[in-house]
């Protein structure tokens, strides 16, 4: 268990700048999520931390030591790959024991640790099987057990849940979180799924085009996005943006409600014309346009499902409003400003 810190890491593949100066300091035991669209450089950054790629410039410090030229095997980090990368010709037991074997840990010690890791993840009964005999969820646990068995300085996870079906994903997410708390290992988790990021991260670093756009707690990222990219990348549906004279006004769909539902407080009113609805069970997403603004700019409102569809009919215009404290302003470069 250790701190991990990166300063101004740059990685260039020929002409492509994959990582463009990422600096990040992770205290011991923290769970940091790197969130970004595919191709944003988050996986490359993770591979630099574990040593599978060498950065073009910048320093990487693990547990107080500069590890720029330290080979992966000496960094003491564990990585769980998106496709797990289990060793198909080994049994589960030998898969989990492998990182210990390479460290020349004694046989009895290996046995003890394999038992500990497999019990922690509830896979004791799978120890004599081979990876191809396991389900997706079981493989994921084996990969996690293998990553944890040698008590790594840091645990790196590259989209570990993307091969699981939706239902399993939710429970696996819970497990990873609980389990990370229990073990207390410094964890860096890469995903493009904002739900995973919000649910798991102590802090989230939003990455785009090889740079960190914003780093903060899930609440900060969601409520106080640093720029338009973060505002629209996080949240489903994303934050509504109204462009006006180059500057931008943003508000979350769930804060955009019919005027009559608003109680006191300072509000800004808009005439909203609903085009269509999407019923999602617990809520209803209304798509439409705001009068006086660009009619090609679709705006969404997330309404509680209990509001009858009749009260705001598609095709009609209706007075909607947003609390002033829920409005966010962005300048013409997309950067957050303090507002008017």
């Amino acid at each position: 268990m250790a701190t991990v810190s990166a300063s101004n890491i740059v990685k260039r593949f020929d002409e492509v700048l994959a990582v463009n100066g990422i600096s990040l300091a992770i205290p011991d035991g923290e769970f940091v999520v790197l969130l970004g669209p595919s191709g944003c450089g988050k996986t490359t950054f993770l591979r630099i931390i574990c040593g599978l790629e060498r950065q073009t410039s910048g320093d990487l410090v693990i547990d107080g030591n500069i590890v720029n030229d330290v080979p992966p095997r000496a960094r003491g980090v564990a990585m769980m790959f998106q496709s797990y990368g289990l060793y198909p010709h080994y049994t589960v037991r030998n898969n989990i024991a492998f990182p210990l074997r390479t460290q020349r840990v004694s046989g009895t010690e290996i046995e003890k640790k394999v038992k500990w890791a497999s019990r922690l993840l509830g896979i004791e009964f799978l120890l004599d099987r081979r990876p191809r005999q396991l389900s997706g969820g079981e493989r994921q646990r084996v990969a996690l057990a293998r990553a944890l068995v040698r008590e790594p300085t840091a645990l790196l996870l590259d989209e570990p849940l993307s091969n699981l079906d939706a239902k399993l994903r939710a429970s696996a997410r819970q497990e990873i979180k609980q389990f990370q708390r229990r073990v207390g290992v410094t964890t860096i988790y890469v995903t493009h799924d904002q739900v995973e990021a919000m649910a798991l991260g102590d802090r989230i670093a939003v990455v785009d085009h090889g740079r960190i756009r914003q780093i903060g707690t899930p609440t900060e990222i969601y409520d106080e996005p640093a720029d338009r990219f973060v505002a629209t990348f996080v949240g489903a549906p994303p934050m509504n943006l109204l462009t006006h004279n180059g500057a931008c006004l943003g508000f979350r769909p769930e804060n955009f409600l019919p005027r009559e539902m608003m109680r006191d407080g300072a509000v800004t009113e808009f005439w909203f014309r609903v085009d269509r609805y999407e019923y999602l069970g617990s809520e209803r997403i209304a798509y439409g346009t705001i009068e006086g603004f660009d009619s090609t700019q679709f705006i969404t409102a997330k309404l509680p499902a209990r509001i009858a569809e009749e009260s705001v009919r598609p095709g009609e215009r209706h007075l909607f409003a947003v609390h002033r404290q829920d409005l966010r302003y962005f300048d013409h470069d997309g950067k957050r400003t303090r507002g008017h």
Partner: protein
Amino acid sequence: MQRIVTRVAGEAGFYLAIAFFVVVTTFPFYWMLITSFKTNPDLYDVTNIPFWFNEAPTLEHFRYLFEQTLFARWLLNSLVIGLCVVAITLIAALPAGYSLARMTGRNGEALGIGIFLTYLVPPTLLFLPLSRIIANLGLQNSMWSLVLVYPTFTIPFCTWLLMGFFKALPPEIEEAAIVDGCSLFGAFVRMVIPLSLPAILTTVIFTFTLTLQEFVYALTFVSSSAQKPITLGVATDLVRGDIFFWGEIMAGALIASVPVAIAYNLLLDRFITGITGGAVK
């Protein structure tokens, strides 16, 4: 009713086509087999039906091969040459194929194609410069010259073959091993080689067959009977004067081809099935 007729006709056509190819491919073997067991009077009497035994089968040709010729020696020579060439080929082609497979970008691809192209240079052209090398090394008229020369075509071919296989191997397995504490070489030995056994086996069989059937280099570099590999021995020493003793020639060919045929049929099928299952996804 009509449907049944069309289906039967379709199936019949299918099996007829298969039967045709089976006959075409197995006929030479059948011919070799019966010729090697026929007595000479049976073989050389043009009034006999050539497709079956007209006199009782005989082991005379086999006895002749082992008692009157250096056939056993040629077999041994071929085996030694084959095994040495297989070893040399694997030592060179495994790391070469792996490096080429993991070299990303155009360079790796171009190099791979370049290496394969060298395989296409015909031996009838290449033996000229090679004969100088053999002479300088003092290996003329020795089977060891063949051990040196055969890798010039087995290594390019096998490198290319292995490269294709390594490319299909998910890199995550090696990367996981590297993060888990292996060096690159360690990951290669502990992950890549065991997972590539089907490909390595294919390479071994291919290499062995290629050396076993090679003729031009053997003919050029080796002339004393005791140093000849089997292809050369059968073709040169069994033709006495200008007479082809078909019985002995076919018996020799049969003995040489049987182990290869068995190896192909048994081993390949068994090992080629997906051993990598469950590694990823």
